[in-house]
């Protein structure tokens, strides 16, 4: 579908809002906007990070999801205990595809689910004893673990357990760190607060553990922050940094270890990929240790080259040459990828609805393939994310914050993009409409998408989704003739009778 004008976009928003009762309409109107590049501050056009409206379908997660699932979970040599009833951990287990190397169950524990499995009696009498017992059992069964984090689920905060005291006592007994994290699901409006709480707990319980210890530093030490190694993303990023001459001391937190996290305060520069989930700790290190941080974007060759140059600009000529060498080395490979896929994808449109970073970070990668992003939105972004998005998106394109199931469906029905990039909850709704969808949370069981190697896979996947012949065999509901519908419905009814 061709571009909408500002008036058309605004009319579309109004039309979609019409079904809501007045109060809800007023509330939701603040979260939907037509992009206006002249606006410096996003808060003038869009409201974000507010409580979801009761009664609508939101796809947000909880603070526990933000802490256990995103920030802490991928740290592979620690055991992350989902403290509370069993469901929260079990239903989110291993779903995020944070790849790691190691022997699961022996020295790494990423895909396992550890839980205190609360029962009624633990709610009534408190679960501290159970937690202490669980810590002792972990130490006995998995002696090679490097530490434990206690990820609180909702009931822990409600019944007022003192997990800090248990953690301190247990840590002393086994001489390994135990980090209590107060990330109960009811805190905050989305998983975003969970990221913040997790960052704060790393700051308070982990980060200063090696202060004052000797460290063989080089002038080129950096850390990768906010890359969760989904499908191998961090690996595809890391090799580029190493090729240009930098030394990656730590990876947060995809394929990361406790030791790496503890050594981060020794680096010269923090490289921040997911701004939303880890800007907090970067700010802290900037203040306490004087380590500057830099946001970068490794999606698509244009942004990668921009980012590599920006990173190199922080170092001496040796690194600057290294960056140019890396860019030149991958240039032919990228040209080949674009030559192959651009003719097939040119002019296709995409609508995105993802978490807190990718709705703006992947725009460049689509543009490298000649595709156009006509609508984008975040589940749990804040104002500063939208500030950064406004510049990336075309004028009058649609922005939606914490979109409801209904809104997203209506927008996509009306704007008819060639591809939707969103999550599993959206996937089958749109595919049944005849619109291909790629999961942009987990890369749809593919990946990596970061870095030069990732772009080749990204381009192939997008082509595979869009050019699949099955979409032309399906008639989306809005294209079906009402007459044509009735007989089949009757036929179905008859069959049932």
């Amino acid at each position: 579908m061709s571009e909408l004008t500002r008036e058309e976009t605004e009319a579309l928003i109004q039309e979609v809002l019409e079904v809501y009762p007045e109060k809800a309409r007023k509330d939701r109107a603040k979260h939907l906007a037509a992009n206006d590049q002249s606006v410096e501050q996003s808060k003038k056009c869009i409201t974000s990070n507010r409580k979801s409206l009761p009664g609508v379908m939101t796809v947000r997660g909880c603070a526990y999801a933000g802490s256990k699932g995103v920030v802490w979970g991928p740290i592979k040599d620690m055991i992350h205990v989902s403290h509370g009833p069993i469901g929260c951990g079990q239903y989110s287990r291993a779903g995020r595809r944070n790849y790691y190397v190691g022997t699961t169950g022996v020295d790494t524990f990423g895909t396992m689910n550890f839980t205190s499995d609360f029962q009624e009696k633990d709610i009534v009498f408190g679960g501290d004893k159970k937690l202490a017992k669980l810590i002792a059992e972990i130490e006995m069964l998995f002696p090679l673990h490097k530490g434990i984090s206690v990820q609180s689920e909702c009931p822990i905060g409600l019944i007022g357990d003192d997990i800090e005291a248990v953690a301190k006592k247990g840590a002393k007994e086994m001489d390994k760190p135990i980090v209590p994290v107060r990330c109960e699901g009811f805190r905050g409006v989305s998983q975003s607060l969970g990221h913040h709480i997790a960052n704060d707990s790393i700051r308070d319980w982990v980060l200063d553990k090696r202060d004052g210890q000797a460290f063989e530093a080089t002038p080129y030490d950096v850390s990768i922050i906010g890359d969760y190694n989904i499908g191998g993303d961090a690996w595809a990023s890391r090799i580029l940094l190493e090729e240009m001459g930098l030394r990656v001391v730590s990876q947060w937190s995809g394929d990361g270890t406790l030791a790496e996290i503890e050594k981060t305060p020794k680096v010269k520069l923090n490289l921040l990929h997911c701004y939303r989930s880890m800007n907090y700790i970067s700010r802290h290190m900037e203040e306490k240790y004087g380590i500057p941080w830099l946001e970068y974007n490794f999606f698509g060759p244009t942004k990668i080259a921009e980012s590599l140059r920006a990173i190199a600009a922080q170092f001496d000529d040796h690194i600057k040459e290294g960056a140019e060498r890396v860019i030149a080395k991958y240039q032919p490979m990228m040209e080949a990828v674009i030559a192959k896929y651009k003719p097939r994808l040119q002019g296709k449109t995409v609508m995105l609805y993802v978490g807190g970073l990718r709705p703006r970070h992947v725009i460049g990668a689509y543009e490298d393939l000649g595709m156009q992003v006509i609508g984008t939105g975040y589940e749990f972004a804040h104002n500063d994310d939208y500030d950064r998005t406004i510049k990336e998106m075309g004028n009058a394109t649609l922005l939606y914050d914490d979109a409801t199931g209904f809104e997203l469906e209506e927008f996509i029905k009306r704007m008819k993009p060639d591809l939707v990039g969103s999550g599993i909850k959206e996937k089958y709704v749109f595919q049944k409409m005849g619109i291909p969808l790629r999961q942009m949370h987990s890369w749809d069981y593919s990946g990596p998408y970061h870095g030069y190697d990732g772009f080749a896979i990204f381009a192939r996947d997008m082509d595979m989704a869009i050019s699949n012949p099955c979409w032309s065999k399906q008639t989306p509901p809005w294209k079906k003739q009402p007459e044509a519908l009735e007989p089949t419905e009757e036929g179905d009814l008859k069959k049932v009778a």
Partner: protein
Amino acid sequence: MANIMVGKTAVGAYSFYLPKRDLEDAIVSMEYDSADKWGGEIRLNNGGTYYIEPQALPARFPISLRARRLDAAE
């Protein structure tokens, strides 16, 4: 009183961060900005104003401070 963080951007302007609400903004004006007297009333890009007890110019940025909210935007 709120905990805030005042930083300096690449171009040397002051920036403001309020961890509690995860609010990041530019500081458009600062009442006192000299070596021996720094702080006072600060005005944010979003229209909010805060008051930092006037003090000597901090040696390093970013720095965490206590500030009083005079007038929050929104």
